C-alpha cells in the first residue's frame, strides 16, 4: 500500500529509491528508444538518491497517474532497479538535516546537485510516432550546427557515408543562412555551446517556426548533466547525444529520429555494448557504401 492520496491509481512505492539498471543505462545510450518523453525524463532523473515521490514533486504538470504508469513501464521492462542505499547512513543524514531545520531545502539542494553533476553520458534518440515523409528521390539533408572544425568535418564526412548531405553552420549567422537555404533539412544536429548563440535557444526558435516545428533535432553537446539532457528533451529535441560520441551511435540516432530502418551498424549489434560487432559493422558498411 502507498500513502498517496490517489493510492488507487498509484502502483509504485513513493519512498523507494531507484536507479537505472544496466539495461536502462544502455537504453539511454544506444541511440534508439521507444520510450515516451515522460519515461525518458523519469529514467534520466533516477539518480539512486532521490525517492520517487521527490522526483515526482520535481516534475511540474505530470499527473500522479501518468507518473505511476511511467514507473510501471520502466519496472516492467527492467530498466530500473532499487538503489543499494545505506539505510543507516541515510537515516542519520535525514536526522541531522531535520535537527538543522533544513530538511526540505537540503533535499532540494541535493536533487539540484545531482541534476547538475557532470559525467552523465547519453545517446538518446526517439523514434517518431509515424515514419517521416521525405521527398522521393531526393537525397536526405542535414544541417550540422557545430563550431569545432574537426567535429564539423568529421560529422559531415560520416553522414556522407550514409548518403546524407550535410550543411555546416558554426555561428548564429550561419545557422540562419543554412536554414534559409532549400531544401528544409531532414534532420538538424545541434551543438549547445556556440560562440554567439545557445543551442537551447535555437531549439526553442525552431520549435516555434512553422517550417521546422517537426524537423527532427538531435542535440549533440559536451554538456553531460542530467539537467541539460532534461532541458533538451523538454524543449522538444528528438535526441540528445553527449560528446565525445561514437560515430556509429550518431548514425544510429539519425536513422532513429528519421524513422528509417536500422543503419548497417545496428544489424551487427549495439556499438555501445559490443565493439567487436562494431568493427564487423564497419566492414559491412564499407562494402555497402562503395
Amino acid at each position: 500500500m502507498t500513502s498517496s492520496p490517489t493510492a488507487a491509481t498509484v502502483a509504485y512505492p513513493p519512498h523507494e529509491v531507484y536507479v537505472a539498471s544496466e539495461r536502462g543505462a544502455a537504453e539511454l545510450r544506444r541511440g534508439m528508444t521507444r520510450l515516451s518523453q515522460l519515461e525518458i525524463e523519469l529514467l534520466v532523473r533516477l539518480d539512486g538518491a532521490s525517492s520517487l515521490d521527490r522526483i515526482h514533486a520535481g516534475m511540474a504538470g505530470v499527473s500522479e497517474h501518468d507518473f505511476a504508469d511511467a514507473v510501471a513501464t520502466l519496472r516492467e521492462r527492467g530498466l530500473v532497479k532499487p538503489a543499494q542505499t545505506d539505510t543507516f547512513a541515510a537515516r542519520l543524514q535525514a536526522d541531522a538535516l531535520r535537527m538543522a531545520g533544513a530538511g526540505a531545502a537540503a533535499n532540494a539542494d541535493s536533487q539540484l546537485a545531482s541534476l547538475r553533476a557532470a559525467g552523465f553520458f547519453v545517446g538518446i534518440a526517439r523514434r517518431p510516432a509515424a515514419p517521416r515523409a521525405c521527398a522521393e528521390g531526393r537525397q536526405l539533408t542535414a544541417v550540422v550546427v557545430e563550431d569545432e572544425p574537426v567535429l564539423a568535418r568529421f560529422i559531415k564526412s560520416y553522414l556522407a557515408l550514409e548518403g546524407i548531405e550535410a550543411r555546416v553552420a558554426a555561428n548564429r549567422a550561419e545557422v540562419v543562412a543554412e536554414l534559409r537555404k532549400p531544401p528544409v533539412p531532414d534532420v538538424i544536429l545541434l551543438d549547445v555551446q556556440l560562440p554567439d548563440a545557445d543551442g537551447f535557444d535555437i531549439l526553442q526558435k525552431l520549435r516555434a517556426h512553422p517550417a521546422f516545428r517537426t524537423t527532427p533535432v538531435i542535440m549533440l553537446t559536451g554538456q553531460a548533466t542530467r539537467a541539460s539532457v532534461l532541458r533538451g528533451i523538454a524543449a522538444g529535441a528528438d535526441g540528445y547525444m553527449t560528446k565525445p560520441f561514437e560515430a556509429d551511435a550518431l548514425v544510429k540516432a539519425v536513422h532513429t529520429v528519421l524513422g528509417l530502418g536500422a543503419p548497417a551498424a545496428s544489424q551487427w549489434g549495439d556499438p555501445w555494448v559490443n565493439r567487436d560487432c562494431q568493427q564487423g559493422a564497419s566492414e559491412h558498411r564499407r562494402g555497402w557504401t562503395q
Partner: protein
Amino acid sequence: MNATQAWPLIDDATFEQLRRVMPAGEFSSLLALGMQLYRQYCDAMRDPQASLARIRSEAHKLKGSAGSVGLTRVSRLAAEFEACSDPSQVTPLVARLSMAIDESAAALRARGMPAESDQTALRV
C-alpha cells in the same frame, strides 16, 4: 604510472573503425587538422590574458573533438581541465595537455598517420 598515463593515448577500437570506414585520406587529413587545432587551443589556454571561462571553453571543445576521433588521453585531460575551478592549476594542466597532444601525434605517426600541420586541411 600516474593517472594521466593510465588513459590510453588512442582508443584502438574507435581509431581502427574510423580508419576502415572513412574514405582514404579523409581520416588522416581530419587528424592532421585536429592536431593543428588542438595545439592552437592549448596556445589559447596559455595566454595570460585568457579568463578561466575562456580556458574552460577551449577545454570543452577539445574534450568533445579529440574523444570523438579516438584521442582518449587528450579528451580525458581536457575534461579534467573543463571541470577545473582553480586558476593555479591552469599552468600544470596545460603542460600535461600539451604533452598528451605531442605524444598522441607521435602515436599517430607510428600508425602511419601524418599528424602534422597541414594548412590545406583547415577547410571544412
